[in-house]
């Protein structure tokens, strides 16, 4: 056994079983470094290596890893090796003879059953078993939900995930008969989320997380748990401390930081030259019940049902309790500031409205508002794209079945291919329309056909209208109408007016859920009219309609129509509204035909 003189460097090499980003590794590392740092060994240098098992594996990988470690640490051989995790211990037991046969090893975060499976440990390998008390967690969950009849256990598809699954299957056989156990093992994440989403409060969910789902997608267990907890209709319990805060209620967890600290202390003793027999005996770090207070409240668990030794996280004293004076000071400051802002706002209101015209021309705000509109349309657009994608997938699946069944069915396959091509174009058309709308671009000044632009804008909003059972009645002008200006911005105006109209009629009876759009040539140019049969707008609000920040909607920002006006005016046109309360509202956009009116560079701020 080596010992080091005080002051000289002591080198500790830590081999982690998994990848670098696993949260448990970070915790072990923190504990380990704290313990090694406070030992009397002098300057301890810690090197980390991540074996990334079981993602990689096999003899060849192990040999390569050995060669890599020998070469990398040739000039700084370790005085002690710490292995964290089952697979890392297995690796060092197998490879130690070829790597550093005499260097002592301390293991951490290895569970007792695994230690037994490779017993007896070679001389010079020390450590204490870790306990991941999945069963204890499940028991606690069932105690908190005494009427639960259903336990859903979610596991993944990687080798380690399967090991967890085997263990959970064995352990869950001892549960009381009233609880039916259901495994969601090795399913694609989407399927898992859908199942969890359909659960009710009569179930509880336990998952240690997983590294890989059924479709081969890789995860950090913590992230897998986070997405499960986000959708689950039943309380979710996790397997590891590091998953606390992702939305799980809690569990009886091994404390990885304490495990790391214990390994560090053990390592210090080994390095200080103690023989195995004389090492200070220690107890295994016991699993500890940790809970997330927010989840406890969310699932209605009684506070006095939480055992006294449990560690409750995320129960912060309320902000006011903690920072009363600062809060008062902040509120006063905010009030003063608000007063000041109010004054400035009133004073500069007129000027700012004028400025909006210029800002809109610069297209920044217009772009932001288009993004907002796109957000509003997302649900419908997802539907529009999933529709052809669904057809494509079903067609491809059908073709596969037809090919498998053999026989001469060329004609049918040809039809299928034709349909796939058509649906593909349909999906890409939706995306193209959206991209044109969302592209951030300079204000353009070129001639375009207004009927087409209106039709395209209407097509974008149509799915949303259909979703809300509103029909559009489109009357294009019977001839081409040429406008000079920015096609996308004019479309934005149309979309805005259409969405407003849809909002206006969405709550009306069936026969009034119609919005008509028309393009007509007039003596002065072109009139674009959007007419709805909604509640209408009271006369005294009509003049304010185009003001910024004026809105009658709960969720509206009150920018849509003010930007619309800026755009229309920048095109040398006018926009006005007429409304009969109880009958409906019409918005008229008059645009000059064939030429751009006032210059877009006009700025009358």
């Amino acid at each position: 056994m080596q010992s080091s003189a005080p002051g000289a460097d002591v080198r500790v090499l830590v081999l982690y079983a998994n990848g670098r980003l696993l949260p448990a590794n970070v915790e072990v590392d923190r504990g380990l470094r704290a313990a090694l740092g406070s030992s009397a060994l002098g300057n301890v240098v810690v090197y980390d290596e991540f074996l990334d098992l079981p993602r990689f594996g096999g003899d060849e990988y192990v040999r390569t890893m050995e060669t890599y470690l020998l070469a990398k640490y040739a000039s700084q051989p370790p005085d002690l090796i710490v292995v964290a995790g089952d697979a890392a211990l297995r690796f060092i037991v197998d490879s130690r003879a070829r790597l550093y046969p005499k260097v002592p090893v301390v293991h951490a975060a290895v569970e007792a059953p695994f230690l037994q499976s490779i017993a007896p440990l070679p001389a010079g390998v020390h450590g204490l078993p870790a306990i991941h008390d999945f069963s204890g967690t499940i028991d606690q969950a069932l105690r908190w939900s005494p009427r639960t009849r259903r336990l859903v256990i979610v596991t993944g598809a990687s080798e380690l995930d399967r090991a967890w699954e085997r263990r959970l299957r064995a352990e869950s056989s001892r549960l009381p008969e009233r609880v039916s156990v259901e495994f969601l093992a090795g399913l694609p994440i989407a399927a898992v989320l859908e199942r969890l989403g359909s659960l009710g409060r009569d179930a509880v969910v336990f998952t240690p997380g997983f590294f890989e789902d059924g479709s081969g997608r890789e995860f950090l267990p913590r992230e897998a748990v986070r997405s499960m907890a986000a959708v689950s209709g039943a309380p979710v319990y996790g397997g590891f401390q590091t998953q606390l805060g992702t939305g799980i209620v809690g569990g009886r967890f091994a404390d990885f930081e304490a495990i790391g600290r214990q390994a560090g202390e053990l390592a210090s003793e080994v390095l200080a030259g103690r023989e195995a027999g004389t090492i200070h005996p220690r107890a295994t770090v016991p699993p500890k019940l940790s809970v997330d207070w927010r989840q406890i409240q969310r699932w209605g668990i009684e506070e006095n049902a939480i055992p006294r030794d449990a560690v409750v996280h995320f129960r912060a004293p309320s902000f006011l309790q903690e920072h009363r004076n600062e809060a008062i000071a902040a509120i006063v400051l905010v009030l003063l500031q608000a007063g000041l802002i109010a004054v400035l706002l009133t004073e500069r209101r007129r000027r700012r409205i004028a400025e909006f015209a210029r800002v809109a021309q610069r297209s920044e705000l217009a772009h932001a508002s288009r993004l907002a509109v796109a957000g509003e349309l997302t649900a419908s657009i997802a539907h529009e794209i999933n529709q052809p994608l669904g057809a494509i997938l079903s067609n491809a699946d059908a073709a596969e079945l037809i090919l498998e069944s053999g026989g001469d069915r060329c004609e049918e396959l040809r039809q299928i291919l034709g349909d796939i091509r058509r649906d593909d174009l349909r999906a890409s058309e939706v995306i193209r329309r959206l991209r044109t709308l969302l592209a951030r671009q300079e204000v353009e000044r070129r001639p375009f056909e207004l009927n087409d632009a209106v039709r395209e804008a209407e097509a974008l909003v149509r799915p949303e209208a259909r979703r809300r059972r509103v029909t559009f009645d489109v009357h294009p002008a019977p001839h081409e109408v040429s406008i000079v200006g920015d096609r996308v911005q004019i479309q934005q105006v149309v979309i805005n007016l259409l969405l407003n109209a849809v909002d206006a009629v969405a709550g009306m009876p069936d026969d009034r859920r119609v919005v008509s759009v028309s393009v007509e040539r007039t003596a002065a140019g072109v009139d674009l009219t959007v007419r709805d049969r909604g509640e209408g707008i009271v006369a005294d609000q009509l003049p304010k309609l185009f003001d910024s920040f004026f809105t009658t909607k709960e969720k509206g920002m009150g920018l849509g129509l003010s930007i619309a006006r800026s755009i229309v005016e920048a095109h040398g046109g006018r926009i006005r509204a007429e409304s009969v309360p109880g009958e409906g509202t019409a918005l008229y956009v008059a645009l000059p035909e064939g030429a751009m009116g006032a210059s877009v560079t006009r700025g009358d701020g």
Partner: protein
Amino acid sequence: MSDVPLVHVVDDDESQRTALLRLLSAGGFDAQGYASTGDFLLQPLPERHGCIVLDVRLPGPSGLDLQEALASRGVTLPIVFLTGHANVTSAVRAMKAGAVDFLSKPVERETLFEAIGRALVRDEARRASRDEAIRLRERFASLTAREREVLDLIVAGRLNKQIADQIGLAERTVKAERAQLMAKLGASSPAELGVMAERLRTLSEE
């Protein structure tokens, strides 16, 4: 009655519907398509083993409305929902109303077939229990008025002698009636008779 299950596909998107019909028939099912809720309700529903693959968003009444309408008409064909834009509210509503599954487009063949498989198993069970109910009703109809009277009293737990006293018959006659009605109903013990009577009662309440 054909052995091949019949899958009804209600989807307003023509190409999606065509693709699904193709896939289902390639997968060995009989399949029939409908463009709307109304379309489905207007067609006569053949008495066949099967299920419904139903879109949520449809022109006019939605898929969820159809599910409700079918339930209120006593049509118990199991339903698999297939939607272009799943949201939690409709999924919850559909599953609560007894849907077999709530899938979102695009859907993988295995997922779809697996859900349809579950729907068909459910349909099978439903049909078996209904057939059994019909048989039971037919047998009950074949009982004489006297036999029904005796049946009621047996089910109420009376002994032969008590029954005889109550209707004013000889105990021997009651025994004969009893044997006769048990043979007609195909029951081998008073306990079984009790189960049948209970089943008949719930059926007549439905």
